[in-house]
């Protein structure tokens, strides 16, 4: 199976500071890949490079290539809007819009030109079901999303992302602001989604990485120290630094 994402010699700078150094990694299609590493090592910066969210930061500069399905996403002819439709993102803090639950999910559909209300309603239901939230919100779709619990808000954000039918879903520590029960729900959801989506999840919870992902990459000081099958990386790390990190002898 071809790789969905291939990153070659990626370097990222914010102004003067060199944040990501010579990143090379291939991401398999329709599998879950975890990114682990101490905080500040560049995990968020890396996944935000994959949907070009870093473009919103004026000081951002990069070199190297990022291929999605074999095509360079930083090619001048590529439209970020189309790219971000294909590469969805779930953020660390749940960030639903201050709108109704329904409108949150319908938002992406509408901005991409869908205006048949029946179709939208169907899609919203489908997405909420896929995000395992439907049963909880079925009868209060018009309620403000701000009234949901943190875990529900995060699943709503996932539903919102799924609704626009991306190929890839980036998740930046999606559970770090959530309680254990909500975390379990999101992890179950990831298991369900991995058959249809390529998922890249940042986590600093190593158990979570072992539970949800097939592949793992270990970041340190802006470099990928080691990457490969999750089981292998945790059982028999090749690099001393990886071993130190996963055995907790580290930052």
């Amino acid at each position, binding site marked *: 199976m071809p790789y969905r994402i291939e990153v070659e010699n990626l370097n990222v700078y914010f102004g003067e500071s060199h944040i990501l150094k010579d990143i090379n990694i291939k991401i398999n299609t329709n599998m879950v890949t975890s990114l682990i590493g101490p905080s500040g090592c560049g995990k968020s910066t890396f996944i935000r490079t994959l949907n070009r*969210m870093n473009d919103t930061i004026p000081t951002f500069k990069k070199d190297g290539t990022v291929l999605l399905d074999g095509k360079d996403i930083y090619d001048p002819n590529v439209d970020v809007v189309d790219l971000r439709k294909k590469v969805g993102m779930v*953020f660390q803090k*749940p960030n639903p819009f201050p709108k109704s639950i329904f409108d949150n999910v319908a938002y992406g559909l509408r901005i991409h030109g869908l205006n048949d209300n029946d179709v939208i309603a169907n899609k919203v239901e489908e997405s909420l079901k896929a995000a395992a939230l439907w049963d909880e919100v079925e009868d209060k779709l018009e309620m403000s999303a701000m009234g949901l619990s943190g875990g529900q808000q995060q699943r709503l954000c996932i539903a919102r992302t799924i609704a626009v039918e991306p190929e890839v879903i980036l998740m930046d520590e999606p559970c770090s602001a959530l309680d254990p029960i909500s975390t379990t729900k999101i992890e179950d959801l990831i298991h369900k989604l991995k058959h249809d989506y390529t998922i890249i999840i940042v986590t600093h919870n190593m158990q979570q990485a072992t539970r949800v992902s097939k592949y793992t990459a270990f970041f340190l000081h802006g470099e990928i120290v080691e990457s490969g099958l999750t089981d292998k990386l945790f059982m028999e790390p090749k690099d001393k630094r990886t071993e130190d990190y996963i055995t907790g002898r580290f930052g």
Partner: protein
Amino acid sequence: MTEKKEDKFIQWVLFATGISSILIIILIIAFIFSEGLPAIFSIGLFNFIFGMIWNPDIGLYGVFPMIIGTLLTTFLALLMAIPLSLCCSIFLAEIAPPNMRKLLKPTIQGLAGIPSVIYGFFGLVIIVPFIRIHFGGSGFSVISASLILTIMILPTIISISEDALRSIPFEYSEASLALGATQWQTIKNVIVPAAVPGIITAIILGMGRAIGETMAVIMVTGNVVQIPGSIFEPVRTLTSNIALEMGYATGLHYSALFSTGIILLTVIVILLLLANYVNYKTKVSIGGGYL
């Protein structure tokens, strides 16, 4: 011990200065009302507000044409100022590169700092002749006043709306952009709706400024007491009426001018209460239940 006494004394003095703004307000209201209420009682509130004729020579004091004058100039100004200032505040908050912002910020400050009488003078020498030449009439008109007021209320609406737009968490924009929305879609569908209460407050305060403006308006409206047939005809506003006639008014006429002041005061206090209420609503609705 003496130190304690000194502290107490100072605290007392500061308290006195602190409540001075309340005392001043009360004093102002008391004086305006005590001078103005007699006229309202003698003319009758209804006749005063809805009376069509203002003619001190024959003892008729109806301010309705002036109310219309104030409303017309104000709303026409808002009609022009709202789109321009909203675009400008969105530009400042979301789009302008730093250099441009460095230029635009002092510009808005500058517009806010220009004296009313300079605006009036500018209107008199530029806008009035322009209207006269291109649209006929004397040029002293509703539209001349509205154009000047538009410029004058820009800074109020722009700066308050900009604050409102800026206070919308960046997380909302990020979420929208990550779904593949364009920047404009994000502004239109996420940022502006979330900032609506602040924007409404901005508009209300801009409206207050337009209603209260005197000198700029007096110099370009022609000050004819009438309900104008078109925006190219002259009018008189409530504020101008006071400024024009205070110099020689006595008796009931004098009191009627203070009654006009009562109307202005009341309207401004209502607008302020409204603005505060809308703003208070914002705080409740944004970020409630967040995390």
